[in-house]
């Protein structure tokens, strides 16, 4: 990566993540995809290395690493296994993030150190069957009675829903206040009434559990409210930049793994007397793939660098996520094409990369929402 000047620390973070992904993740990706579960021991090890609390400050047990290092690390981990990359990005951004920003000292003491160390995995319960992009249209209800909140409702597509020990749940506390009537709650997942209804069967990132959750008279103490009453929607949308940078990096890592695999194959496979890479069609595929991957990385690191410097970067983060996710599907598809018939078999990893990549255009804000954000920002710019 000679075109980028990385600091000593950034290189060390990238090297460690790459070595870890190569040795501990890549050899198991296929098995985790089949079994639908990533080994707990691997997630625990990532926690010990600091990979699950990357931007949490040292005082709360985090690694306090800069955002560029974070993006580089998510890319490397995702190149090892896309599902692990999903868990890492989601836990860092919407697992640790809300408590870091809005938690009371008591809440931070109870949860943040555990989250940063990966001893507790967090999950984010916002989406409902009828509310996806329209995040404010929630039906889950929270009612206060004698110092306790009772939660009732359904949550959809909750990543880490089964693995998590802590859930951040968004519910309507004041139905008459619309967007300002939603609040956030910290719900330990072993609370009676917090039910993992179903672990979904997905196209990809199968090692990462995605769950339908039911809240059935789930009772939590008053002090489990996160942030002020009515601030729930703002809290839910408070880490879009970090979340989008993370998922963009995940998409990039998956694409890079597919590209490197296809590149290697193109040098070994011979047809019509020459290696595939010596056939112009294939050579052109690879040239385009490399260019797209490098372009995505620069978009991601630009957004990460702006976030690190405290500059608003919502449009840049959205651009990175939009570009990297669409690029990833295209690159993975070309990788299968280069492998030909073999690319369609489970014996080779490219079909899994292709399946893993697809979700990155949907979660953490669909491509359509990203375009909406970018276009909206353009309305405010005059050239």
């Amino acid at each position, binding site marked *: 990566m000679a075109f980028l000047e990385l600091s000593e620390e950034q290189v060390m*973070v990238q*090297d460690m993540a790459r070595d870890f992904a190569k040795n501990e993740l890549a050899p198991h990706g296929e098995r985790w995809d089949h079994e639908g579960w990533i080994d707990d021991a691997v997630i625990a090890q990532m926690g010990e290395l600091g990979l699950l609390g990357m931007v949490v400050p040292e005082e709360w047990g985090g690694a306090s690493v800069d955002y560029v290092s974070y993006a580089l690390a998510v890319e490397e981990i995702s190149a090892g296994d896309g599902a692990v990359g999903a868990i890492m990005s989601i836990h860092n951004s919407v697992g640790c993030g809300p408590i870091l920003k809005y938690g009371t000292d008591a809440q931070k003491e109870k949860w943040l150190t555990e989250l940063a160390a990966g001893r507790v995995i967090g999950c984010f319960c916002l989406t409902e069957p009828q509310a996806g992009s329209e995040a404010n249209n929630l039906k889950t209800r929270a009612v206060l009675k004698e110092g306790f909140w009772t939660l009732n409702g359904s949550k959809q597509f909750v990543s880490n829903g089964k693995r998590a020990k802590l859930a951040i749940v968004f519910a309507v506390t004041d139905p008459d206040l619309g967007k300002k009537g939603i609040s956030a709650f910290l719900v330990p997942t072993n609370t009676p009434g917090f039910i993992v209804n179903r672990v979904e069967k997905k196209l990809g990132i199968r090692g990462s559990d995605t769950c339908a959750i039911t809240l059935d008279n789930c009772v939590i103490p008053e002090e489990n409210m996160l942030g002020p009453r009515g601030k729930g929607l703002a809290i839910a949308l408070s880490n879009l930049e970090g979340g989008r940078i993370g998922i963009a990096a995940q998409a990039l890592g998956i694409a890079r793994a597919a590209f490197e695999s296809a590149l290697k194959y193109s040098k070994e496979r011979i047809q019509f007397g020459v290696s595939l890479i010596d056939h112009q069609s294939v050579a052109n595929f690879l040239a385009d793939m490399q260019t797209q991957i490098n372009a995505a990385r620069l978009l991601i690191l630009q957004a990460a660098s702006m976030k690190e410097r405290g500059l608003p970067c919502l449009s840049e983060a959205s651009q990175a996520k939009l570009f990297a996710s669409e690029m990833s599907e295209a690159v993975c598809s070309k990788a299968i094409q280069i492998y030909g018939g073999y690319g369609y078999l489970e014996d080779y990893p490219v079909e899994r990369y292709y399946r893993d990549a697809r979700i990155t255009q949907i979660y953490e804000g669909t491509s359509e929402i990203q375009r909406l954000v970018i276009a909206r920002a353009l309305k405010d710019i005059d050239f």
Partner: protein
Amino acid sequence: MKILVAVKRVVDYNVKVRVKSDQSGVDIANVKMSMNPFDEIAIEEAVRLKEAGIATEVIAISAGPTACQETLRTALAIGADRAILVETELSLQPLAVAKILANIAQKEGAQLILLGKQAIDDDSNQTGQMLASLLDLPQATFASKVVIADGKAQVTREVDGGLETISLSLPAVITTDLRLNEPRYVTLPNIMKAKKKPIDVVKPEELGIDIAPRLTTLKVQEPAQRSAGVMVADVAALVEKLKNEAKVI
């Protein structure tokens, strides 16, 4: 007990190097550089000895251009306490490095000096041995196990005949082999802590050491391409080829 660990910045083991067209060496422009893998094992062993309460301080040392600071920073992130860079742009050979290490080891009063058995760029396998000789210290090379107790080091060495275990009185020089340990992944908090650990830079002239090379490289070339195998009709033909062509029986 102070441990001095020598680390070398080399081409990363994953890189496929190419010979320069003028055959003066290999092209390392823009190539990824890393800590020599055997030196990683040496740092890991030293840090484990500190964690076990046997060593009090681990000092990492390297000799070479300014960029070697990156390698030393990695050593600090693994767990070394401080680092020394003997800075020079001159090409260093094992004897020069051994002289440098001898000078620093004596100044620091190191009770144990750990090195990788060889560097993966020149494969010399000389520095540790020369260092022990310069300091008149006992040496144990190719260590696959090290036990320190009562002022002695018990070292198991990997030798052609198998394993040999010897006892050395400290101070001593030990060079590491592959099976001594598996280096840890550096944790992110330790990468951040390493930023604050000191790296002292000195010049070889300040130490009064003559590091001029004694060897001149005449030519570097690629190894001969491996030719295709040959199918033989039967065992008799195989034996005939092994005897008369390959000349191995």
